[in-house]
């Protein structure tokens, strides 16, 4: 009998490969009394030294960005004051593992007290502590596995720090116990074009080396599949790839209704890949990367140069720039107040502009300067717009900088409910389904346990998309979708049927969306949208559409 585990499907595609698990953090043993403190100190400091040597040798072989991170971690582990403190704690009666734990803990507290980007280093200290304790206790090193052959990475969850060093030529697929459809793992999987199943609670039963078939479209992980199952999945995958690669150029339905297919862009290192992808431009250019990890906002010239790079790479194509979206899960010390009880509902997105108008004005001036020198079709939109007045103010500000096209993101239910007035106040609307789902269902998008509520197939979410697209359509305003929803080929049909005019997703997802669109008429899409809206819940909405397109 074959066992099949289910989770939340992320991306498309399927692959078979052996499991390699993220090695878990070593548990601290019971404290013990140390008889020979000199030997204990020697062994503990030797373990710490081994961690430093390992980091240094990995830094020597890693790429430039990863090497800098590893070298900095090595310097932290080699800290002479840390070593003194560990020795002191052992003299005072702790065993080595507990001395390491306490010493790292003290520095962690100090960094957290320093706040801002100093506090972000706290995660590095946790990683170093785990490594040093594992080394001392002779346990396997926590972190990414390196079995020496391609593998399916299985983890409880993946943090950005875990995945910075992930080698896309070795990792076939991702399976995590936790995480939802908009989690870091899901976004990473789409960016790398990897099949993934997240929120797969039973993934803890997957043992090292076990062959598994990961089907990202179905959200399933099949244990030890029979050879004929593997072969049939592989030929399906082959056909899928051929199909995704068959249709090129501008997005359109089978009857020629145009649907702009655009790429999401969040960092300059993604630029060359996105620009080379078959897409009609950038539907969501997230500008936060310019502001992260710094004490004050970047100046006009620095911003202009960065925008110029993007516009030049997309010469002749559209680039939709989203102004700074600071707050909630990406706070910035110079923008956000640290004293909010509930930052997802606080002063974030466009709301920060009311408190610090110079921030957004500098950004718009930089976008305008870069746009003036480029042939890209530059549109600008604001995040977290709640009422039409905000959209009108923003549009006036954008036009004052000489930029002709201003839009508002629809991420707050209030904006969708008043989409007509929102569309009157500016030139286009862009629906951010990730935040719109979070606010519609009052479900924290970082909580894997609420993933079912955040499913973009939820009929209530689709209702808000329908209202927004209809009101925009009545006024001749483009209405795009730029959340994770746009990456799902089947859901893309529904969105188009609801009246959405453009879809923006990770470049790796666009081929399949394009191919699927080309096989259905606009009338088909409308019928599928009606089916999804009539469904009682997300699962049956998906099932009904899948059944009809079958």
């Amino acid at each position, binding site marked *: 009998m074959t066992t099949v585990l289910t989770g939340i499907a992320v991306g498309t595609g399927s692959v078979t490969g052996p499991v390699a698990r993220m090695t878990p953090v070593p548990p601290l043993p019971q404290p013990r009394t140390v008889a020979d403190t000199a030997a204990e100190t020697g062994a503990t400091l030797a373990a710490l030294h081994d961690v430093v040597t390992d980091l240094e040798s990995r830094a020597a072989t890693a790429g430039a960005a990863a090497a800098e991170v590893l070298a*900095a971690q090595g*310097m932290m582990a080699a800290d002479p004051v840390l070593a003194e403190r560990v020795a002191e704690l052992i003299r005072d009666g702790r065993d080595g593992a507990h001395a390491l734990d306490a010493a790292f803990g003290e*520095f962690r507290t100090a960094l957290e007290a320093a706040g801002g980007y*100093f506090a972000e280093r706290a995660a590095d200290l946790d990683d170093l502590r785990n490594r040093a304790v594992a080394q001392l206790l002779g346990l396997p090193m926590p972190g990414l596995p390196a079995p020496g052959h391609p593998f399916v990475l299985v983890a409880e969850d993946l943090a950005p720090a875990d995945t910075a060093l992930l080698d896309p030529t070795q990792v076939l697929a991702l399976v995590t116990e936790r995480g939802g459809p908009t989690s870091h793992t899901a976004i990473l999987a789409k960016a790398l074009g990897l099949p993934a199943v997240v929120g797969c609670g039973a993934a803890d039963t997957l043992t090292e080396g076990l062959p598994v078939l990961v089907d990202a479209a179905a959200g399933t992980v099949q244990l030890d599949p029979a050879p004929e199952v593997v072969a049939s999945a592989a030929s399906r995958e082959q056909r899928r790839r051929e199909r995704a690669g068959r249709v090129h150029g501008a997005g359109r339905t089978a009857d020629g209704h145009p649907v702009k297919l655009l790429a999401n862009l969040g960092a300059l290192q993604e630029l060359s890949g996105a620009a080379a992808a078959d897409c009609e431009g950038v539907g969501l250019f997230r500008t936060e990367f310019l502001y992260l990890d710094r004490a004050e906002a970047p100046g006009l010239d620095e911003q202009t140069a960065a925008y110029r790079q993007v516009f030049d790479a997309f010469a002749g194509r559209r680039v939709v720039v989203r102004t700074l979206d600071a707050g909630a899960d990406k706070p910035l010390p110079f923008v956000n107040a640290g004293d909010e009880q509930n930052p997802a509902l606080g002063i974030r997105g466009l709301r920060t502009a009311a408190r610090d108008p110079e921030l957004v004005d500098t950004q718009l001036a930089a976008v305008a300067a870069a746009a003036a020198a480029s042939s890209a079709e530059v549109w600008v939109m604001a995040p977290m717009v709640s009422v039409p007045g905000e959209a009108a103010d923003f549009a006036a500000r954008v036009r004052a900088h000489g930029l002709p096209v201003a839009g508002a993101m629809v991420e707050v239910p209030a904006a969708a409910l008043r989409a007509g007035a929102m569309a009157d106040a500016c030139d286009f609307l862009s629906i951010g389904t990730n935040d719109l789902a979070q606010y519609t269902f009052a479900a924290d998008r970082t909580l894997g346990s609420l993933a079912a509520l955040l499913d973009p197939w939820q009929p209530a979410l689709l209702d808000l998309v329908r209202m927004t697209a209809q009101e925009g359509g009545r006024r001749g305003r483009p209405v795009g979708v730029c959340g994770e929803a746009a990456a799902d080929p089947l859901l893309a049909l529904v969105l188009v049927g609801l009246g959405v005019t453009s879809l923006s997703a990770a470049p790796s997802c666009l081929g399949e969306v394009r191919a699927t669109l080309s096989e259905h008429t606009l009338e088909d899409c409308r019928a599928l949208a009606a089916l999804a809206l009539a469904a009682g819940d997300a699962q049956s909405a998906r099932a009904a559409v899948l059944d009809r397109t079958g």
Partner: protein
Amino acid sequence: MPQRSVAVGSSSGLHARPASLFVQAAARQPVRISVAREGGTAVDARSLLSVLALGARHGDTVVLSAEDEGPQAEQALEELATLVARDFDAPEQS
């Protein structure tokens, strides 16, 4: 005890690359140097973790102190003060 007060020049503060370079330079000095926020507790300048924990941001003044007196101490303070004041985040000048 010879001292030197200097404002942090890098826009990211005494963090990341500026902090690493400062700590590496401190470790090379023949005299022990400590560093403190104005009015704060002094920490060993060779300790990256202690230096980061100062939380010294762009424009904050830090006080460097040498353990010994003499020309070596003066020279060490001079070198480290220059590093603190330099803006490592500015584009490289050619």
